[in-house]
């Protein structure tokens, strides 16, 4: 970790000094312990503020949307996959970016201090796209069952599922932190904020809460990299990923797709293939 941050600072300072980039997006010490917060460093003197520890769980790709200037970004495996998704979706151009790749062994859970749930089953710890690495590539995990918890929910009857999700979201206050932390949620006006027409109620009615989580998850289908930003941002510690992960599993099973691995292929939900599954259509 120490070697990583020395290297991150060194690269950032160099890029800012020679004018390759206008700003570096990284992490600095947060205002509370175990929370490192995203920051944008614009002057080479401020590079000293950058930190890298096991609390850098937020996905920095979120801050790239529609930027026009040249930027450097510190990217873990999941961040880099979201950067790929951003490039595919024309939210940023590759040549605007200098990606400082950080091979990652997982971030710590903000409450328990143990390895985050999604990091435990991560199979893309190394950045898939980068300009410079801050350390040697780490070994990727194999034989992990990414979807063990999703399978458990799938096995429930429809009434049991209903109750399961009722319990899951019972403490949700609709603060929308999961949406704000998500690099995929960049719509200029989110469907929950729209009032003409108003798609979903704005209060904390159980039906509205469910509709919000359900629809947000669907918007992330085939794009979600399971980076865990949503869960890390949730002040109520709701397992938001239960829903997004199911969609991730479906995309992997139905289309053999994992988001953000290549710039050369369109995601399954914005392209058509003759062998797409259609047996659910009458």
């Amino acid at each position, binding site marked *: 970790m120490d070697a990583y941050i020395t290297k991150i600072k060194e690269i950032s300072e160099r890029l800012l000094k020679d004018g390759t980039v206008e700003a570096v997006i990284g992490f600095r010490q947060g205002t509370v312990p175990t929370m490192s917060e995203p920051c944008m460093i614009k002057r080479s003197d401020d590079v000293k503020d950058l930190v890298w520890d096991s609390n850098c769980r937020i996905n920095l790709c979120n801050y790239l949307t529609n930027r026009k200037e040249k930027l450097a970004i510190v990217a873990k495996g999941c961040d880099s996959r979201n950067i790929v998704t951003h490039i595919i979706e024309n939210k940023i151009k590759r040549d605007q970016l200098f990606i400082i790749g950080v091979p990652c062994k997982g971030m710590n859970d903000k409450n328990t201090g143990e390895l985050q749930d999604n990091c435990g089953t991560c199979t893309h710890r190394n950045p898939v796209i980068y300009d410079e690495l801050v350390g040697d590539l780490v070994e990727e995990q194999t034989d992990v069952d990414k979807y063990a918890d999703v399978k458990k929910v799938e096995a429930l009857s429809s009434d049991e*599922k*209903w109750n*399961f999700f009722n319990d899951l979201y019972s403490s949700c206050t609709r603060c929308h932190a999961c949406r704000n932390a998500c690099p995929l949620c960049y719509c200029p006006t989110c469907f929950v904020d729209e009032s003409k027409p108003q798609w979903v109620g704005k209060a904390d*009615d159980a*039906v509205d809460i469910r509709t919000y989580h*359900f629809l947000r998850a669907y918007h992330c289908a085939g794009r979600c990299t399971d980076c865990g930003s949503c869960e890390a941002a949730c002040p109520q510690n709701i397992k938001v990923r239960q829903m997004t992960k199911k969609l991730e599993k479906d995309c992997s099973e139905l289309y053999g797709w994992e988001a953000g691995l290549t710039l050369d292929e369109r995601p399954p939900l914005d392209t058509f293939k003759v062998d797409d599954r259609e047996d659910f259509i009458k």
Partner: protein
Amino acid sequence: MGVEPGRLQFSWISSAESTKFVDVVKQVTESVKELGPNEKFIKKTVKVS
């Protein structure tokens, strides 16, 4: 999600396939009637007395 299978159905019907449309609508209506009214997605209205 907890929505009963059968309540949500997909079909692809061309504007020229009127008979298929009628058949599908009949089928969907039947299967939904079998399931009965949807008790789940109901918002409780606040009572002011």
